[in-house]
């Protein structure tokens, strides 16, 4: 159990925890960054309207629509949206650990990464597969959040924007996305906090984040409770303020909602 002597022993290895903290923060920050942009593209792909039908002339569109049936249905097939959906469903339906091992042991098996150390202690060749796996995974979850956010915006907003002559992209950029992001901020914050916690899984491939520090300390001191307490405190201090900071921005962005 916990003891003062145990903490004293563990404290000698506090440097490992500091390094673990830096590693966890950079891991999560990069995951959030890449995951969010991946999700944005996935969401736009899923909501896209790219199909054979669109590229026909208006007269052929009209004729095809009147006829209906299989040819019409097939012409509405959207390969881009289909592929994005397949991606999202696979990543949401399989365990994170499987994805992580797959990416580290299979995907990166043939890739020679430079073996230098980030900040002097983070092993680059372990860190990169970790970021890639986490980003690919959270991208799938964030995609669904963003998609729901875009779909929650009243169609009248798009109609108003388009009727003013804004292009589809300008409508997204200035009208739909700012409102969508505001609506989904709590869900995104939730996902960011989840990423900080889930990044601990990267210790299984030897990324030196906080759980890796726990394992090292345990090996050196034969103490497990005290390192875990320290890890718990660090994780809490990371996630709690994160959700508070985002709650602050949420309040600031809701200016247009109420007085």
């Amino acid at each position, binding site marked *: 159990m916990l003891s003062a002597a145990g903490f004293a022993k563990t404290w000698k290895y506090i440097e490992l925890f500091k390094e673990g903290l830096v590693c966890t923060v950079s891991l999560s920050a990069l995951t959030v960054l890449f995951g969010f942009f991946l999700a944005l593209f996935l969401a736009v792909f899923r909501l896209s309207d790219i199909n054979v039908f669109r590229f026909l002339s208006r007269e052929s569109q009209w004729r095809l629509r009147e006829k209906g049936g299989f040819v019409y249905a097939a012409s509405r097939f959207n390969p881009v949206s289909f592929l994005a959906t397949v991606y999202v469903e696979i990543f949401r339906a399989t365990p994170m650990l499987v994805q992580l091992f797959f990416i580290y042991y299979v995907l990166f098996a043939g890739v020679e990464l430079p073996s230098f150390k980030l900040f002097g202690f983070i092993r680059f060749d372990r860190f990169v597969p970790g970021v890639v796996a986490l980003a690919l995974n959270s991208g799938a979850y964030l995609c669904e959040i963003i998609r729901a956010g875009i779909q929650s915006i009243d169609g009248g907003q798009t*109609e108003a924007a388009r009727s003013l002559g804004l292009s589809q992209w300008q409508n997204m950029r200035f009208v739909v996305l700012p409102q969508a992001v505001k609506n989904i901020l709590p869900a995104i914050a939730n996902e960011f906090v989840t990423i900080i916690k889930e990044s601990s899984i990267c210790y299984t491939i030897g990324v030196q984040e906080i759980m890796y520090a726990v394992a090292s300390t345990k090996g050196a001191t034969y103490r497990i409770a005290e390192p875990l307490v320290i890890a718990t405190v660090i994780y809490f201090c990371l996630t709690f303020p994160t959700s508070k900071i985002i709650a602050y921005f949420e309040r600031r962005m809701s200016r247009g909602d109420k007085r």
Partner: protein
Amino acid sequence: MATRDNIIQVKDLKKHYNQGKIKALDGVTVDIQRGDVMVVIGPSGSGKSTFLRSLNLLEEPTGGSIHFGGMDITKKKSKDANGNLVKVNINLHRQKMGMVFQHFNLFPHMTILDNMTLAPVQVKGMKKDEAEEKAKHLLERVGLGDRANAYPIQLSGGQKQRIAIVRALMMEPEVMLFDEPTSALDPEMVGEVLEVMKELARGGMTMVVVTHEMGFAREVGNRVLFMDHGQLLEQGTPAEIFDHPQHPRLHDFLSKVL
């Protein structure tokens, strides 16, 4: 009448759903002339809103043609004024057609000023301060000069609709489309919106108005269209439509609403 006065020519416009089982628009042909205040009336579900929304392709028709600025905007490519086949850029045509909606559709995350300057700045490349100057001038004209920095949520329905009208005017459109602009308003706010529309009409703006305000149709409109079941059943001056209706369905409709 010389054809060059025609600003929009609609020919045999159709909008069918479910492989033609539902006909929201069933062959509407009409010419809209510069300076016209054309009021479209009819029972709900008659296709009058679909007709209006088709004019700037918010609703994609499934047949027929709409000529605007010399081009058939329902097609992907059309002959321009010089007879060359060119790609139709619908964004370009929408800039010239202002639209006002039943539910205002102001952008809630922007101030009134930003609502108004967004399109001129982003689409036309107007300078921000120039656009703001113009917006303030227009706001003065509709009596809302002091609300430039308010958010839409802080305004009443009537104020929102007046803003929506001047937001569309910022693009200096050649024609304004109104889709039941007063239907979502409290009765005491209808007047202020109609007043702005009347002033526009007096200024010579070409307008197409879908409305249930028969008083407005009679007083301001110079042409009235009566639609039912996706078809244009009767058209004429307000006096012809309201005082000497020909079609039995128009008779029936007027007896219910007047």
